[in-house]
């Protein structure tokens, strides 16, 4: 595997030089291997959204560099649009960006900007729509007739249709019902598996991160607090709690069991693994 994203000493300040300047990111460095699924978590206002808008050059670093596929994003500022197609960004509450008359046209907006042929656009739109669970019939509807959750799917499909090498999602499941959450995230995971695209998922839900991410980046007040494999991050539960974060419910249960003196591993963070561990422990008794 080769490195696909590298962030070096990235700092970003909002309103620099103004009386109300905010240091949103402070000397952030990390790298992501090609094809990995990385989760980003951190308390509200720690700089997650600010960080991800750097990946496709919407924000220009105050200090530091970002490399995508080995290329410095800001080597030639005139050429930044190229990275918009290489990196697909799904914003927090993306349903508010829909504008076209039909769902189909809205999903086609990105691919059309890429200058693809009609046939290619059509194929991509249908593929992305299918992945997001949008039926053929709904493609001809107005996006404004849809429910919030359906709108969200359209917005995500609009980014998937660009088939980015790096897919970045900012809380794609916020405000959805539990089933809607699982469906959307499952579809994103399926997309990740099928296309092999590197994926970054920002989420407040420990369960979601635990379920889908290979690695986890924990931000705290604009700094990298942890960056490690998912199991290793969740094994540091006390530190996470100190940062105002939490750990998945199963992990909490296992931590408590350990406190009561049971000899079980600390890195249990998904339910299937928890079941396996319990069964193994039972055998051992």
């Amino acid at each position, binding site marked *: 595997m080769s490195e696909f994203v590298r962030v070096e000493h990235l700092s970003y300040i909002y309103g620099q030089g*103004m009386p109300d300047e905010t240091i949103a990111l402070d000397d952030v460095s990390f790298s992501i291997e090609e094809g990995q699924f990385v989760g980003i978590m951190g308390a509200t206002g720690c700089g997650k959204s600010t960080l991800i808008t750097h990946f496709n050059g919407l924000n220009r670093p105050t200090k530091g560099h970002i490399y995508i596929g080995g290329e410095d994003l800001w080597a030639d500022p005139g050429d930044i649009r190229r990275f918009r197609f290489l990196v697909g960004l799904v914003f927090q509450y993306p349903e*508010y*960006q829909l504008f076209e008359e039909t769902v189909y046209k809205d999903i086609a907006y*990105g691919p059309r900007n890429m200058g693809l042929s009609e046939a290619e656009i059509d194929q991509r739109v249908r593929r992305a729509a299918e992945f997001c669970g949008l039926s053929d019939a709904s493609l001809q509807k107005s996006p404004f007739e849809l429910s919030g959750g359906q709108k969200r799917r359209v917005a995500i499909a609009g980014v998937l249709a660009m088939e980015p090498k790096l897919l970045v999602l900012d809380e794609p499941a916020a405000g959805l019902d539990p089933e809607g959450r699982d469906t959307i995230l499952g579809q994103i995971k399926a997309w990740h598996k099928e296309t092999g695209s590197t994926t970054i998922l920002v989420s407040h839900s420990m369960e979601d991160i635990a379920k889908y991410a290979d690695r986890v980046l924990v931000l705290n007040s604009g700094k990298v607090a942890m960056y490690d494999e998912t199991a290793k991050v969740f094994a540091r539960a006390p530190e996470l709690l100190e940062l105002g974060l939490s750990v998945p419910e199963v992990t909490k249960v296992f931590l408590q069991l350990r406190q009561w003196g049971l000899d079980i591993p600390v890195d249990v963070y998904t339910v299937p693994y928890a079941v396996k561990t319990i069964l193994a422990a039972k055998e051992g008794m």
Partner: protein
Amino acid sequence: MLRDITIGQHFPGDSALHNMDPRAKLVLTLVYIIMLFVASNPIGLGISIVLVFGLYLLAKIPLRLIGKSLKPIIPIILFTAVLNVFFVTGESEPLVSLGFLHIYREGIDYAVLIVVRIICIIAGTSLLTYTTSPIVLTAAIEQLLRPLSKLKFPVHELAMMMTIALRFIPLLIEETDKIMNAQKARGAQLDSGTLMQRVKALIPVLIPLFISAFRRADELAMAMECRCYHGGEGRTRLKELRMSGKDVWLTVAAVVVFVAMGMSNFLWK
């Protein structure tokens, strides 16, 4: 980029200027602008520049912000300055003659005068909004216009509309920024191409923006109704505006400076 707009912004603080009665601030700012036009001589303009810069220091607002708020109108300033330099004629011999263009001393004087006036007006009015929150400012306007309500003029409604408009400006700027980013992420080209292309490229920004503005207005109306808002009649305020002793002194000091600006016309011929 949109966020760089500083006009109408407020920077909370605790200086004498921040805490001053907003009615006094508002009236004094208006008088200041009038005096800028009355005092058309180097001494008067000198005083007005010193006054504005001094007040920025007093309010602890970085002077850099003056430059920032001037940035959008630099083309206008340059345009009027150039126009004045070349087209104002005087009685004496022209200083320079370039073909049909003649530059007179009066032209240069006039250009400097206009530039200083524009800069001082922008700096002065910006200072008012920098140091006064929009809510307080509209409360002041409402109180100052109150006598008009005797003539059945809807003062309270006007003030409420202004408050809401002022509150919505930063929200809409933020919203525009967000939507522009989202569309740029899908490859929208908002800042290049022919005029026609640019206008077309704005559609994906404007439609969501209008929708969200209407949604917000709707929600706000609902929230106001839920709290039984029924207009200005019999309405009281949590914070009544009062002139403190300090405000009186500041006002007197300002009036003295304004008189000096006016008198400077007689000193300078």
